[in-house]
């Protein structure tokens, strides 16, 4: 289609009433900012929840014996009673491009006591050097340090320490059912105390060197319950799990490789719910904006109905007149989008890189078993920028449909009435 005179007219009309154009464009631009920011904040909250929920202890991907979950029997180790080549397994898992690090774990459950006080504890045998790159618990120490491999040192939660009334250097007694049906028991020295903010962890979890726990529960060094891994991006975990499953298949160990999306389906549900909310935000913000643009376009076209009558009299088809109005609205939309992007970009960068700290309003809180920091963290995605931009342009066009139809229906004979 040849560029007719109408695009020119539409564009110049935006310049004719500059203040009105700017006010309307500013409204749309702020609508854009609001949507991108609100959606970004929702995504930030979701990302925070997933990261925190998976990295506190569980990791974003886990490998177990097929029979291990959900009972978590102490003898259901990877590779069964024969165990497996743990270093090789760790190497295979870590070789996946989406995997950042992998660590082996042994679990046990029993009684933890000091003096008169006794509490139930979940014991986790870890390799501190590897564990540090998979989960955050070793970084959440309020006192002391992680247990030293080759010693009977133990790291306990702050609530457990309070209940047992113990401190760094104090001794505690563990009594644990072992894999061979006997009861293992030994004396451990508290090397550190952690506080994750999650009540369950802080009250009942304790960590010790993996060989130490294996000895206590009578498991050979090649028998572990779990390999936990961290990913470079949590959303890559499901694909990574598929690849790793295929990679470990030939070993014939009878194992499961599960991403967090299957281990914690409620977090995935929440993430998907949050995504649905993005659309609600778009519809609400631009739904309001439609009325602003409609008002502007009604005024702008009503003032010019004589001009439209001239266009029609000179032989412009009603459809072409309607197109002129839509062209003008689209020009307004593009203008607003450029302005919106210009104001949004720096705000997003700023919010993303240094999220406003709201700890003066409220402290840490937990959400779906994840610890959320009180920050306005904002995540942005190119997809969301594009979708919001399209929504803005659609808003401008939808708001102009009625003014466009009205303009096309101006009677051309009005040009002769001498007004």
């Amino acid at each position, binding site marked *: 289609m*040849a560029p*007719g*005179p109408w695009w*020119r*007219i539409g564009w*110049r*009309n935006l310049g*004719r009433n500059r203040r009105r154009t700017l006010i309307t464009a500013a409204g749309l631009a702020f609508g854009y900012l609001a949507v991108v920011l609100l959606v970004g904040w929702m995504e930030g909250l979701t990302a925070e929840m997933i990261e925190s929920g998976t990295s506190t202890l569980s990791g974003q991907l886990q490998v177990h014996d097929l029979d291990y979950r959900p009972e978590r029997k102490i003898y259901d180790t990877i590779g069964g009673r024969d165990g497996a080549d743990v270093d090789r397994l760790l190497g295979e898992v870590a070789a996946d491009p989406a995997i950042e690090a992998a660590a082996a774990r042994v679990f046990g459950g029993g009684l933890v006591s000091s003096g008169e006080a006794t509490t139930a504890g979940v014991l986790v045998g870890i390799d501190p050097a590897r564990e540090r790159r998979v989960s955050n618990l070793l970084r959440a120490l309020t006192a002391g340090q992680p247990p030293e491999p080759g010693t009977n040192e133990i790291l306990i939660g702050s609530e457990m320490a309070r209940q047992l009334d113990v401190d760094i250097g104090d001794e505690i007694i563990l009594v644990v059912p072992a894999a061979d049906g006997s009861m293992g028991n030994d004396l451990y020295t508290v090397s550190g105390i952690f506080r994750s903010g999650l009540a369950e962890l802080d009250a009942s979890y304790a960590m010790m060197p993996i060989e130490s726990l294996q000895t206590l529960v009578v498991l050979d060094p090649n028998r572990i319950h779990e390999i936990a891994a961290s990913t470079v991006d949590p959303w890559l975990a499901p694909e990574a799990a598929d690849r790793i499953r295929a990679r470990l298949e030939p070993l014939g160990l009878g194992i499961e490789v599960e991403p967090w999306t299957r281990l914690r389906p409620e977090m995935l549900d929440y993430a998907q719910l949050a995504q649905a909310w993005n659309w609600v935000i778009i519809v609400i913000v631009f739904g309001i904006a439609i009325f602003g643009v409609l008002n502007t376009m009604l005024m702008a076209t009503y003032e010019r109905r*004589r*001009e439209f009558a*001239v*266009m*029609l*009299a*000179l*032989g*412009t*088809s*009603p*459809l072409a007149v309607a197109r002129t109005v839509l062209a003008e609205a689209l020009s307004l939309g593009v203008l607003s989008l450029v302005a919106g992007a210009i104001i949004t970009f720096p705000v997003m960068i700023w919010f993303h890189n240094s999220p406003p700290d709201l700890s003066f309003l409220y402290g840490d809180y937990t959400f779906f078993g994840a610890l959320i920091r009180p920050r306005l963290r904002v995540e942005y995605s190119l997809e969301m920028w594009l979708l919001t931009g399209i929504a803005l342009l659609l808003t401008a066009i939808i708001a102009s449909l009625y003014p466009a139809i009205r303009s096309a229906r101006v*009677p*051309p*004979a009005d*040009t*002769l*009435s*001498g*007004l």
Partner: protein
Amino acid sequence: MSGGRPLTVLRDINLEIEARSAVAIVGPSGSGKTTLLALLAGLDLPTAGSVTLDGQLLNDLTEDERATLRAEKVGFVFQSFQLIPTLTALENVLVPIELQARAAKHDGSEPERRARELLARVGLADREHHYPAQLSGGEQQRVGLARAFANRPKILMADEPTGNLDADTGGTVIDLMVRLNQEEGTTLLLVTHDTQLASKAHRIVRLSGGAVVEDRRVSAP
């Protein structure tokens, strides 16, 4: 539109206008001159009766088809000039050419040259890039004339083209219009109150109360 009752403005009009002739339509205010012009140009459709323009029965055409017909065959000069305020003089003259180029689906290779030439012929070669607000009434109407001839119309319709101009300026505009009309070989349909102006036509049609009361040939086309 106001009121609900149908109002008969024109009745029993039977008029045939020869190609290349100049016809003046005169009559008192409210006699239906403008209404007749709107019907002849296909801006409105009659409630009864038919209008044929250059062999084409307008009653049969859709709104879009009538618009296309106007773009191709009709030129307009309005009493209140009706230039598009956001376009320069040159761009205003270009509008009908661009519309016609589209209607005819051929792209006019020389629309700008045609528009410039017309502006020169109405004596506004140096005002091409001025907006209507920067021109006097007489100058605006001369741009209006250039625009009316831009698409080489078969018929030019003018409703009180001098109604908003003083006598001298009006005279200049009329002289220009008559000259362009002869040069371009256009049929001219002119509505006017001005008897002196009407006397320049080949034929004078007088309306009163919506009916033709006089149809006089003044000179041969």
